């Protein structure tokens, strides 16, 4: 009954979304107020209905209602409650329902929070209505989450064990909130294109929404990376897997969009580029979904390989992009040309930022799409892996990070570096000095580094000191009350935090990849293992029972160092219901590095153990958190002003 109610709610949501997409279009000229009122009501009702459907599916999972096909295929009675709930989006149908829920949530949130109620707001909601129609139709016609099985099976097939993890419960909602959030960029771009050139006012209204999307996407990607790091048991944090790239592309384009929208808002310049970027960013978000959901790519994320679904998403992607680009082409001449600015100015540097980020996006796109094209043409199956991306990103990062700190320090229109030359020289000097220090101390243990690596360390530190300089400049007017933290303006922290976050992440990536140590041994009980100056003892193995798995648990003891005497317990788990096996790494987390131990198969009377030391690896996710925090400060500033 509950499931039928959920299904019915989805059908009603489609009807309401259609109303939201079409009715205000007709009324826009004759009765603009009515048009807006309808669009706003419809977005509230659509959200409520999808929420109801989502609750109904969650209920099905919690109650283990195996008459529902998705519950049968993806759940099991012997599964902890949290994973029953997370199981709602641990499958194709449920995750698309979550997607639709977030589309509707953004529409409703915009209707609720928009400060100006005009034709522009109505047009944003109309576009959101069309998105609702497209994805609800996709859900209902190709991926109905409420499909029944008759007769109902007694037991479910279970959720893939590697997905039974707390981080995985949060990863998809965060990521989707990011992807779908960029639909707002698209909606705003279309609303701007169909209106008059309002001097960048549309960019001002768009920024909080793309900031929100960007924060969610940053957190979602970071969480996914962290999950892969600890759950998949091989200690890497980024694999340049096509699916990861699918989320990185909209992130890179979205980061560019954040910056160019700032220019469009403040200076009424780079408008045409910003509009194009808004459409492209959303198109990249959609192609991410297409790549992941169509089964074109095989990975942890490919739930189902159903060509019909792939075609449907491709049609949605093609349709929305086409409409976007056609409108862009037709209406662009109405937007006034850019105001002039000097190359050395904040606009100039933000333009450089956009060129770099756009290049990075294209690079990732090329590496991701090339194997697919080659395969489609029957020219062989290839894989493009980390070496390609490293070879391109390393040289690209150096000039990018070198120029980045200058942007926020310069004035709009015409900037002057002269007054800053002493501080900049200090920052550069410090960066060089610290780099030399790091290289000298580390080369003893790890040998020399290549010029590229040394340069990358130096620019990362320069970026960090540059961000501190930026913060100091912004806080200079408040010198007298620096101790009263809460009275300082939030806006002063946004860019410095985000840029420092990038620096911290770069440092983490460099340290973790350059100084990583790894040892694989076939160990007998009581054997000592030495890694990165730490001595461990393998004590032996025992069998334990978990809630829905059995495990072989090894015990290792620290013989030296800060953790002396403590034990760690890497496991190999066997999941009965899913008939699968996973590796649970034991990770000792310190800010200065992670010790990461994994237990493998038997080899004679010994056990294969694999132990890594990942120095400063936590900086990678810490950097991402700082970036998201910087974004949040910018958002808070904006909300206060609104």
């Amino acid at each position: 009954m509950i499931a039928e109610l959920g299904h019915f709610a989805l059908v009603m949501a489609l009807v309401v979304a259609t109303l939201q997409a079409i009715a205000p279009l007709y009324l826009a000229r004759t009765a603009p107020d009515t048009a807006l009122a309808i669009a706003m009501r419809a977005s509230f009702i659509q959200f409520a209905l999808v929420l109801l459907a989502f609750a109904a599916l969650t209920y099905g999972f919690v109650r283990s209602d195996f008459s529902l096909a998705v519950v049968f295929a993806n759940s099991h009675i012997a599964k902890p409650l949290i994973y029953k709930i997370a199981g709602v989006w641990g499958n194709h149908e449920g995750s698309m329902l979550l997607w639709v829920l977030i589309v509707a949530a953004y529409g409703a949130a915009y209707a609720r929070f928009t400060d100006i109620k005009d034709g522009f707001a109505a047009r944003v909601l109309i576009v959101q209505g069309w998105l609702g129609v497209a994805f609800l139709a996709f859900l209902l016609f190709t991926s109905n989450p409420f499909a029944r099985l008759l007769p109902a099976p007694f037991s479910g097939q279970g959720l893939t064990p590697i997905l039974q993890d707390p981080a995985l419960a949060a990863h998809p909602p965060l990521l989707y909130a990011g992807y779908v959030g960029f639909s707002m960029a698209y909606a705003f771009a279309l609303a701007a294109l169909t209106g008059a050139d309002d001097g960048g006012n549309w960019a001002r209204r768009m920024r909080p929404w793309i900031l929100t999307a960007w924060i969610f996407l940053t957190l979602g990607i970071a969480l996914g990376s962290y999950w892969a790091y600890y759950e998949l048991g091989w200690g890497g944090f980024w694999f340049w897997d096509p699916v990861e790239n699918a989320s990185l592309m909209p992130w890179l384009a979205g980061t560019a969009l954040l910056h160019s929208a700032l220019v469009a808002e403040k200076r009424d310049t780079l408008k045409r580029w910003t509009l194009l970027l808004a459409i492209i960013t959303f198109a990249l978000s959609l192609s991410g979904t297409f790549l992941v959901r169509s089964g074109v790519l095989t990975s942890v994320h490919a739930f189902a390989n159903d060509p019909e679904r792939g075609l449907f998403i491709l049609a949605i992607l093609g349709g929305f992009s086409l409409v976007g680009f056609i409108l862009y082409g037709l209406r662009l001449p109405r937007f006034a040309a850019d105001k002039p600015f000097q190359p050395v100015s904040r606009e100039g540097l933000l333009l450089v930022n956009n060129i770099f980020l756009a290049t990075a996006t294209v690079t990732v796109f090329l590496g991701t799409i090339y194997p697919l094209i080659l395969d489609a043409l029957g020219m062989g199956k290839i894989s493009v892996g980390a070496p390609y991306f490293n070879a391109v990103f390393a040289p690209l990062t150096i000039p990018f990070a070198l120029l980045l700190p200058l942007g926020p320090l310069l004035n709009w229109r015409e900037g002057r570096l002269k007054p800053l030359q002493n501080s900049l020289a200090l920052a550069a000097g410090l960066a060089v000095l610290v780099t030399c220090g790091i290289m000298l101390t580390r080369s003893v243990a790890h040998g020399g580094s290549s010029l590229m690596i040394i340069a990358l360390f130096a620019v990362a530190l320069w970026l960090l000191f540059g961000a501190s300089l930026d913060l100091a400049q912004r806080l200079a007017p408040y010198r007298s009350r620096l101790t009263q933290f809460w009275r300082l303006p939030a806006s002063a922290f946004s860019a410095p935090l985000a840029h420092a976050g990038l620096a911290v992440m770069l440092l983490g990536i460099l340290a973790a990849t350059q100084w990583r140590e790894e040892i694989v041994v076939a160990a007998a009980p009581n054997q000592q293992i030495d890694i990165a100056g730490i001595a461990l003892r393998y004590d032996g193995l025992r069998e334990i029972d978990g809630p829905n798995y059995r495990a072989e648990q090894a015990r290792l003891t620290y013989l030296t160092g800060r953790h002396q005497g403590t034990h760690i317990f890497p496991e190999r788990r066997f999941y009965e219901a899913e008939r699968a096996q996973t590796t649970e790494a034991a990770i000792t987390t310190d800010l200065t590095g992670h010790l990461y131990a994994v237990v493998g198969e038997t080899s004679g009377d010994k056990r294969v153990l694999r132990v890594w030391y990942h120095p400063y690896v936590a900086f990678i996710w810490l950097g991402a958190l700082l970036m998201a925090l910087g974004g949040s400060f910018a958002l808070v500033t904006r909300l206060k002003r609104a």
Partner: protein
Amino acid sequence: MTPKQIRLAAIGGGLAFLALAAGIALTALEDNIVFFRSPSELAAKPAAIGEAMRIGGLVREGSVKRDGLRADFEVTDLAHDIGVTYEGMLPDLFREGQGVVAEGRFDASGRFIADTVLAKHDETYMPPEVAEALEKSGKLKAPYAQHRGRAEQDGERPQ
């Protein structure tokens, strides 16, 4: 500078930068792609010694020999076999008779020395390259065909 000069400089600089970036990207792509070859393809056209590649198929029943960290096994598409040597920790679901992908290169004696071994994560999954290789050799049986693409890849991945 006048606005016109600035625009020219911006366009010129942008184009030069794009050309440079495209150059780097294409060179990197050329140097770093790795081809997948099935045992039958390799039997028809042997690979050069030392060329990086991915091979895949089923782990031949009864072929796995372990000695400490070293594992020797044969990868087969049921028409041809390749002898593989791997030193390190095999992935969770590495089993005889199951699908596997190995990344590495052939040595002078014709053995495939793997740097990485990727295996499937649950029992219904078959790496797509392996499924295709088996289809081509005409040995693929029904259950795999249905399950291609469901579930997930890779006990281990290249780093």
